[in-house]
């Protein structure tokens, strides 16, 4: 990547965070070393910002009162009576495929019974605390309260997602 300049579609994808993380890192590394591509990136960034500013100026947000009303409406929507739900389920279009799936699932379930014990999944408390911090930080002013990034503090990574090492020459000077 160091010797070849980045094409404009890759640059635009990078700008909009559309690249896969591995490619994103490579492009980032290249831009820190290649002034020509960095210049092209700056030009694209300015254009994007100008378009966003134009869009923001024309944007009309849904009033918060309306949003709240919708949320309250969803929370308070009536739940159908059990016989109404049963009536829907026993219609042939739904009932027959559902029965077939049920039979298959039971067969598979019995087959696997005893071979291993399934544990209920758990979600780490840190996931909730970090997700709260991340969404607060990007959505609100002055919200940042994470003393260090979770990625450094507890080394949280998705197992199996490790990819190849960044090539040695990707950040070499031109």
């Amino acid at each position: 990547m160091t010797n070849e300049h980045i094409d404009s579609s890759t640059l635009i994808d990078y700008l909009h965070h559309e690249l896969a993380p591995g490619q994103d890192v490579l492009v980032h590394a290249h831009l820190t070393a290649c002034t020509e591509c960095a210049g092209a990136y700056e030009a694209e960034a300015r254009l994007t910002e100008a378009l966003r500013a134009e869009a923001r100026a024309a944007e009309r947000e849904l009033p918060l009162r309306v949003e709240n009303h919708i949320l309250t409406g969803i929370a308070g929507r009536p739940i159908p009576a059990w016989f109404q739900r049963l009536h829907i389920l026993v219609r042939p279009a739904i009932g027959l495929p559902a029965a077939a799936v049920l039979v298959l699932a039971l067969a598979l379930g019995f087959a696997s019974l005893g071979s291993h014990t399934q544990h209920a999944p758990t979600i780490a408390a840190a996931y909730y605390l970090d997700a709260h911090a991340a969404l607060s930080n990007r959505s609100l002013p002055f919200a940042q309260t994470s003393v260090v990034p979770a990625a450094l503090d507890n080394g949280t990574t998705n197992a199996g997602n490790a990819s190849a090492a960044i090539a040695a020459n990707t950040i070499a000077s031109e």
Partner: protein
Amino acid sequence: MTLRRVLTLLLVLAAGAHVSAAPAQTDHTAFALLHAAAEAPLHVSFVAQVELLTIGSHGSDASIFRVEHRAPNLTRRWYLAPSNVYGDWTVSRGDSTYAVDVKHHRVVVTRHDAFGVHFGWRHNLALLTRNYAPILGPDAQIAGRRARTISLVNRYSGATTMRLWVDAATGLMLQRQVYATDGSLVVQMHFAELRITNDIPISTFSLPANYAQTIGPSRSLPSNNPARAMAESGFAARAPRFLPEGFTPVAADVGDEKGIRTLHILYSDGLRTISLFENARGAAVDMSGYHPVALTVGPLHVESVDRGPTTLFAWSQGNLHYALVGDLNREDLEKIALSLAQ
């Protein structure tokens, strides 16, 4: 009633009205300064040393880091403390962060988890100023520079929730203090040194060669339409019937953690935040590494942990599992939890 008594009563009433109305007034100079502070990182490049402190009732955390910020959105943080991250650094580009873990020779890439400089806080200033009155205070000296002080006073309670010290010359936020409802300090961010410069080379933000690259905690792109996120969650999600005054839903996402579809809605009054997580799989919360406390909140059996000033409540009801996270006092969190049970 004598004329003197009537006049005295009128004076007392007028004084009372002044005290209760004062927080509702907007100081237009303070408001302009707040806007300037929101815009400053977009056009001011600087090198600084920053101290960040969070104080909880069960423990506190602190970090010290060097910051190189190249406007508008490239930021490098190099950690001096605590010792477990000493020498590590992060490079943030907008809301993507590359965390360079020197000890493990790896770069952790995280999307939608901004660790730059005050990123994104321009978007909800309207909500903040609807619920908080910005009031100018006396000037101060921070990092050897003249700073103007803004207190953000809650329009309902009259309590000062945050105080900012903004560089008079550039608009950069040099110090920030957050206070709990009892007035105690819970967060402080402080610039110990600052140098404004336009000469930060782009190579400052380069990443080390030959480091393994791993994907950090996955975060989906949040929606600013919580109602739609609720509808798309795939289960009958519930919304709290009680929220503290001024709070409203501001963002949401529906993510899959360990294959469990989880709805996350962020509520805020512009400064304080609460996250409500819901899933229909009854997935328990793993609290290992923390000191959970069992609480009885009405009919609910709640487990609670604290991290700095932030509290996590977790409980199940019916086929739904809830996690409520926020930096509010325990009484308000309990009221929110109870309102979901009604």
